[in-house]
Each structure stands twice: as C-alpha cells, then as structure tokens.
C-alpha cells in the first residue's frame, strides 16, 4: 500500500485530500506544517511513497522543506507533489527546478484529476 504524507496547514482542505486519497487506497499521514512533517519523517521507520506539499505555510515554507528533503540522501528520492493555490505563476517553474515531481494548482484541478496525476507520478517512480 502506498503511503502519502500530506503537508497542509488548512484543516478543511487537508481533511478533504486525506479522505480522497484514503478512499482511493492510500495510507495517509498528515502534517499541519513543514516542521511537523520533518519530525514525522525523522521518527517513522518507513518513508512515505510520496509527499503532497503545500507552499504557503507558517513556521517553514514549502520551499525550505523541499530544499531540506533534497539535501537529505535518505529522503531525496521521495516523489514530491506540490499542491497549492499559489498566486505566483513563477512558483511552478521554481519548484520543478528544486526537484518537485509535480506542480498542481488545487483550484484548477478536480479531485479526480489530482488523484490520477498523483497515481501517474507514483507509477512512473515505481518503474524506476
């Protein structure tokens, strides 16, 4: 079973995506912010199959979190899906360059789209 770590500071959105992926066969772990996520990753023995990352969060931004992950040899290969409502168009390019596997604007993608795209990323990763 694929495990997803969803990092989302908004409770309602977090709940929704947790439910979406749970209902579709994922084991979901949640973090309210990037620091909490790093804690979870530290403590857990098993790394998640992918991380769903929001950008604009308090404490630590998505950017810093991504840089941290990519600098960590254990975790740098975990697929990162950036799922955000960022206003800034340039963010997509920036995060893909930082090593994100997928950049999705929440509001422009239906749940079904998001599910399909995340599935696709995981399938491709598992092939490698």
């Amino acid at each position, binding site marked *: 079973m694929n495990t997803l770590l969803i990092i989302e500071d908004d409770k309602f959105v977090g709940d929704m995506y947790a439910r979406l992926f749970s209902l579709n066969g994922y084991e979901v772990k949640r973090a309210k912010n990037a620091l909490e996520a790093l804690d979870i990753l530290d403590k857990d023995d098993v790394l998640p199959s992918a991380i769903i990352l929001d950008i604009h969060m308090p404490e630590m931004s998505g950017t810093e979190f991504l840089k941290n992950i990519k600098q960590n040899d254990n975790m740098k290969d975990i697929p990162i899906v950036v799922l955000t409502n960022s206003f800034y168009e340039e963010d997509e390019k920036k995060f893909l360059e930082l090593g994100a596997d997928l950049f999705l604007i929440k509001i422009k993608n239906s*749940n*079904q789209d998001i599910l399909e795209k995340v599935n696709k990323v995981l399938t491709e990763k598992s092939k490698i």
Partner: protein
Amino acid sequence: MIKMRSIRTKIITAFLIVICVTIVLIVSIIIINVSLENRYKQINQNIIYEQQLKDNIWFLVEDIYNALKSNDYIDYDKRLAEIRAEESILDVQFADPSVNEETKLDYRSVKNSLNAVIDLTESTRKSFESTGNISGISNIFTDASTKFDFVKQNTTDLLFAEVKNIANTTQDIQKIQNLLTPIALIILFLSSLGLTIFSILFARKITKPLISLSTIAKGIIDGNTDLSVAENLLKRKDEIGSLSISFDAMIKKLREKIIGLELSSKELSQANNELGDSKRAITNLLEDVENEKSKVEETVKIRTQELSDEKSRLLASINSLSSGYVLAGMDGTIILNNNAIRNILEVDKNPKAIADLSKYFDKFDLVNSCKECLISNKVINIKDIEYKNKFLRLFCGPVSNNGQVIGHVLLIEDMTEAKILERSKDEFFAVASHELRTPLTAIRGNTEMIMGIYADKVQDQDVREMISDIETASVRLIGIVNDFLEVSRLEQGNSVFEKTSFDVSELITKVTSSIKLLVAAQKINFKLLRPESLPNAFADKAKTEQVLFNLMGNAAKFTKEGTITISTALEGNFLKIRVSDTGSGISEKSTSLLFRKFQPAGEQALARDVSKSTGLGLYISKIITEKMGGTIGLEKSQVGIGSTFFFTLPIAP
C-alpha cells in the same frame, strides 16, 4: 556764338564819344590858355630882367669907379657876373623863334650897347691896372655916360618892344577866346543834341519791341494763345532779338503746355470726379475700419483680460499641483517651477538649471533624459526613479511653438505611496487568492466527492440537487476568482510569457476535444479547417490555449445546436485563427462593448447572465494576444446567424 550788336555797347559808345569831344575841347582850351599865360609871364619876366639890367649897367659904372678908387674889385666883379648872366638871358630871348624881328633888333641894340659899356669898364680897369693912373677917368665917365644913354635908350626901346609884345599877346588871347568860345559852345550843343536824338531813337527802338512783347504776354495771360512774335524782332541780332527768340520759344512752349494743361485739366477733372468717388468710398471704408478697430480693440481688451485670467489660473494650477513642475528652456535654464518640486526633492532653494536639479539624483541622469526628450521631441516617462527613500516618476515633455521645440516641461511625481499601495495590492491578491481559493477548494472538492464517491449515500433528490447547485456555484466562484487574479496579473505585467514554437493545429485539436466533452449534451458539429502545410506559431503555448479555449467556449456557449468551425490560415507573418459559430450572434450595438472588462461575449452585454460568465474572458484573451504580438477581434456577427471571432499569432522565425 552769334556776335551781337549790343544795345549797351551802342549807348556806351555814344556817351564815350560825347565825353571825349568835351575832354578834347576843354584840354585844348586849357593848353591855349596856359601857353598864353606863360607867354605873359615870360614877357613880364623879360621886362623885369631888362629893367634890372638897365640898373646894373649904371651900377657897374659906379662900381668900377669905386673899385678904382679903393682898388677893390669885388663888387665890380660881382656886378659884372650878374650883367653877363642877364646878358645870356638876353641871348636866350633872342634865340626864341616866337620873338619878332623888331624885338630881336632891340635885343641886338641892347646887347651892343651893353657890350660897349662893359668894354669901356673893362678897358678902364686894364688901363688902370697897367698904369695905375686914373687921369682919364672923367673921359671915361663921359664916354660911359654917353654909352649908357644908348643903353638906356636901347633898353627903353626894348621895354617898349616888350610892352608891345604883351599887347600883341593879349590881342592874340582875345582872338583865340573869341574864336574858341563859340566853337566850344557849338560842339557842346551839337553833342547834347546828338545824344538826345540818339536816346530818343534808341529808346523807341527798345521800348517798341518791349511793348510788343508785353502785349503778347498780356494776351497770353488773357488766354489768347494764337499770338506770336513779329518776324523783324526775331531777326534782330541784339538783346531784343535774343529776348524775342526766347520769348517766342517760351510762347511755343507755353502753347504746348497750355494744350497739355487743357488735356490734363480734362483728365484732372475726370480724375477729380473719380477721386471724389474714391474719397467717399475711402471715407466709408475708414468708418468701417474705425468700427472694426473699435471692435478689435474691444476684443483685444477682452482677450488680454482672458489671457491674464488664464495666466493666473495656470500659475495657480501649477502651484497647486502636488507633482513637481519645472519649465526649462533649450539650454536647461529653469524658467518656472512650483513649490512642490522643492518639497518632493527636499531642497530649500529653487533650482536655477536642470544641471542643478540633476545633482540631487545619485542613480539617475536627469540631464541626459531631458536631452533625449528634446532631441526626440517626444514625451519621456520614467518610472521608479530611486531618490533618497522615495520612488519618483518623471515626465519630460517638449514645449513646441509652430513646430519648433523651444524648451521642455518636467513633472516629477512622488510615487512612494503609490508604490507601497501597489505592493499592498500585490500582497492582497496573493493573500486573497490563497485565502479565497483554499476554502473554495474544500467546498468544491467535498461536493465533488459527495456527488461521486458518496453518490449512492445521498438518495434524496432535493438534497442531490442542492449539493449539485453548491458544486456549480463553487465552480463559478472559483472561475470568478481565477479570472480576477488573471486580470490583475496581466494588468500589472506580472504574468510570465514563455514564447516557444509550436503547432497550432495540434493545440486546436486538443482544445476541441476538451470543449466536446464539456458540450457533449449539445448538438454541435465541430469542423477544423487548415491548409496542408502551416508554419509553427511563436507564442506562449499555455496562454494560446487559454485564448483558444475562451473563444471556442464562447462559441459553444451561444450555439445550442449547429456548427463551430475553427480555421487556420497564414496571413503575412501571422497565423490567423478564426472561430465561427452558427449561434445566436451579436447585435451591432453590442459589438462595440466586446473585449472590455466585465463584458460577456454574448448578446446579454448589459444584462448579466447569471449562469456562467464573469465578463472577463474576452478581456483576458485580448491582453494575452496583444502581449504575444498578435491581434484579436470580431470579424463578423449577425443576430440569429452566428459570429466569427479571430486572433492572430506571429509565426516562428
């Protein structure tokens, strides 16, 4: 030159003759008188000499007697010398040719007697000196006395002769005077007569032609122009002749002049009439001009007042501007500035020249920008000039008069607050997008899941419809928010355009598929038309897709049933993509509102369609297309028949 017998010469000659004759006459009378006078004197002198001689002879005898007695001959010698001198005078008189023979004989006699006396005294003296004897003295005296008597007689004769001479001479004078006086009188009378006659004749000769000329002159004055100078006058070779010729010439000239004058007079009269008319016309014109002048003066007064008002307004306006205002000449000398410029630049003194102003800026070359403005003759607008802790905006506009650039105007605006506001706006949009979109994401996501995964758990039809409405509304709200953000980004130039070369046909096929899915319920037939080969477009692919989606979406929205045709063609360096539909069409009055903010593409331009539109689609498409170097527009539209929209994209190089 003709030698004239001058009247003046004639008169002078006549007078000269008379004067000469008179002078000759007078001189000859004087000469005659003088010679006679001399003669008189001479005779008188002779008489005196002869009288003296007679006395001396006597005294000589006495002297010799005394000398003999006293043996002193001084007196005797003296006397003898006197006698000899007088004797020589006698000789001279004798030699005088005018002396008549009778007198000459008397002279001879006197001389002989004289010589006899002298011989006697001399011989006496010699005899005395040789003998010292005076015995014969009485004889001597007797002899001497005799001889003396002769002398005396002879001298007396001579004196008589002289007196006779005087008488003769007096007679001569009388004769001459008797002769000369009538001659002189006659000559004088004749001269006077001649002169008088000459004068009368001459005067007549002069006055006659003068009177004739005068008559002619009077005639001419009276207006008789036919008169002419008599031939004989013209032939004369004196001053009168010359005067006549000149007069004649003058008359001829005058005649010509008079004829000319008469003609001129007629012309003048005519001209005078015309002048009168002209004068009246000019007077009228002058009155008009005067009226006009008053009007113009009044207008000028009003305009001057207006100008003055305008100037006051302008100055007040300039001073009330919150922007810094500077008016400078071609050489950069500042002519006018307001107080705001000092406040904005935080300086105390009014700048004198653009160069002074430029010194305040660290990172901006004001002088150069002004030069650029003057050279290009265009308004220059420079934003975001950093000045101390401010952001300034500069407008530099040329000032022209009759096409000649004469200076420039600078407007310096303090944009600091606007800049802060702009940033706040950006931040607001960023936050708003996040804060609005996040709950919307939850709403839509959850309703989507209810309607999908949990559909079987919602059995009640009303509840299902309510949830469906919530989803539809949330989707629309998401659309509105997205469009707002999009417009904001595009308007602020924050949108990133990544131009690439791509195949438009491929993109059309892709978008058509998406639209087909969306309008599957409608009976719409899609037609794609394209030439066999077509160059790639050079634009932002994602944004081109957005435009295409917007146009095709609109076409589908307003075509319940019919055909949507998407055609592509190469036009110059552009690809033209047309989207035609057979839908409801747009009326002419609504077409002008298309592509504006909040104007939907359909007929319900002003009445908002509550269903799906935000009215920003075409506006966004327009900005995007233009930013990519293309154009967008409505090609044609007719209510009930359909519309054709198009947009163009530059082809790949």
